[in-house]
């Protein structure tokens, strides 16, 4: 680990001033950043500990939704009674991720800002365009079992590892940020980005911007939802493919459906055309298969991750069935509902 100095501001304005310095980085729960510091992947000269900022509360928004403070832990969020009652999809996705002790430390702001688990990104002895722009991508033509099948670029095929973010994409959350230019609100779909020509940018935060909260809209999806996560072992493993579904059924027809995929792209993967396919149709396998084809259109494997395409092709209709039947995947009893 490199040497760095340390600041622990107690006001957002001080934190943003500290964070604007070159080579400064924010530290929240530390479960990702400390790991990256140990691997010499993160090399800040100053660590700004945001753990004492007044951003650790869950409250109501004016529009009937919930505001999740950036420093509320993943555990506190998942087990909060308001979140459990109104956004069970979010609770489920959080509890599908990591472990109890990691979720006790991990924060909401840190979760959506966690870096990829690409092996080459973590190994400074190998080339990686995300870590060292212009070096090349070790995963293309290398070991890429966990990598993306959608939205990749010739420069990077990494995935975003968060489970929580997949649910937030389906719920159409908004990310509230503060920087030296003031506050702004970023729709979740525009928060993370595809690698394109700039694979070192995971998201659309400007340098030094701080996430202060995540807002959940009033719409809740408490009946027809699921988070289905497929991985190498039943717990304590990142998603190979995951599917978040939020659905509204009226008079036996799908009135609205949202599908977000994890483990397959550099951001939670949604395609509105796939969701539109479902609107007005009966919730049956034919409709689900049709939506799946649109959602996976253009999917491409890179060798070791080819299996993710047939895996996703099975997981998506299964998740849609779970949501339509009102039998969401249990995150304890891992048998498929």
């Amino acid at each position: 680990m490199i040497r760095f100095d340390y600041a622990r501001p107690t006001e957002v304005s001080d934190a943003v001033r500290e964070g604007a310095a070159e080579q400064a980085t924010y530290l929240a729960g530390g479960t990702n950043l400390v790991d990256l510091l140990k691997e010499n992947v993160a090399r800040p000269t100053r660590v700004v500990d945001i753990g004492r900022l007044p951003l650790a509360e869950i409250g109501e928004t004016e529009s009937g939704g919930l505001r999740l403070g950036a420093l509320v832990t993943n555990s506190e969020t998942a087990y909060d009674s308001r979140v459990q009652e109104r956004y069970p999809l979010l609770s489920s996705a959080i509890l599908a991720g990591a472990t109890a002790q990691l979720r006790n430390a991990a924060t909401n702001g840190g979760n959506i800002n966690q870096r990829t688990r690409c092996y080459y990104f973590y190994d400074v002895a190998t080339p990686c365009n995300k870590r060292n722009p212009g070096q090349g991508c070790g995963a293309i033509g290398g070991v890429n079992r966990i990598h993306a099948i959608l939205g990749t670029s010739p420069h990077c095929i990494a995935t975003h590892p968060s489970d929580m973010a997949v649910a937030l994409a389906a719920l159409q959350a908004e990310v509230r940020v503060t920087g030296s230019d003031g506050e702004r609100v970023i729709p979740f779909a525009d928060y993370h980005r595809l690698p394109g020509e700039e694979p070192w940018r995971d998201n659309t935060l400007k340098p030094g911007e701080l996430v202060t909260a995540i807002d959940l809209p009033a719409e809740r999806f408490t009946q027809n939802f699921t988070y289905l996560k497929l991985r190498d072992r039943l717990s304590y493993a990142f998603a190979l493919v995951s599917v978040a579904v939020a659905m509204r059924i009226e008079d036996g027809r799908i009135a609205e459906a949202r599908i977000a995929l994890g483990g397959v792209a550099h951001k939670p993967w949604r395609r509105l055309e796939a969701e539109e396919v479902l609107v007005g149709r009966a919730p049956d396998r034919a409709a689900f298969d049709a939506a799946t084809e649109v959602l996976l259109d253009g999917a491409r494997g890179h060798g070791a991750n080819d299996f993710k395409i047939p895996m996703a092709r099975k997981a998506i209709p299964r998740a849609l069935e779970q949501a339509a039947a009102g039998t969401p995947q249990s995150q304890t009893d891992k048998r498929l509902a």
Partner: protein
Amino acid sequence: MSEAALSLANDPGREVASSAIGTVPVTLTINGQEHRLAVEPWVTLLDLLRERLHLTGSKKGCDHGQCGACTVLIDGRRMNSCLKLAVTLDGSEITTIEGLGQPGNLHPLQAAFLEHDAFQCGYCTPGQICSGVGLIAEGHARTRDDVREQMSGNLCRCGAYTNIADAILEVLGTEDRE
């Protein structure tokens, strides 16, 4: 704790802790005893416990959050001490396996681990027990499935999982034992 460390740490009225590469004063209550320390920002809680305070009960398995051997209770919540920078914990109360119980005065979960033969080599055990104590305090586990899922952050290379679940279920006082 060394006298030098003690003498470096007398800055009680500070508002914003800050360091230009050097040490930061930190007060931690560890197993009920207050420690005033001067700590470099890059030192993890696990290294502080083991290397400076010689509390070697907490184990370093992976040092990357992947095994749970370093699990301790921070303000009553279980966390991986290998991923916590000690400076961030100023003012916290930390309980390690040494603070849960001692020979002759075991914590009920320590006693249950003995009774159920819930270990072989013992390397994962301090982390398992701290994690189990955290799980019980959280109050989200009723069944064996719940316990297994909520203990997934603690790996055991000896594979003592069945007996570990038995020990925790006994202290939880639930019926779902096999």
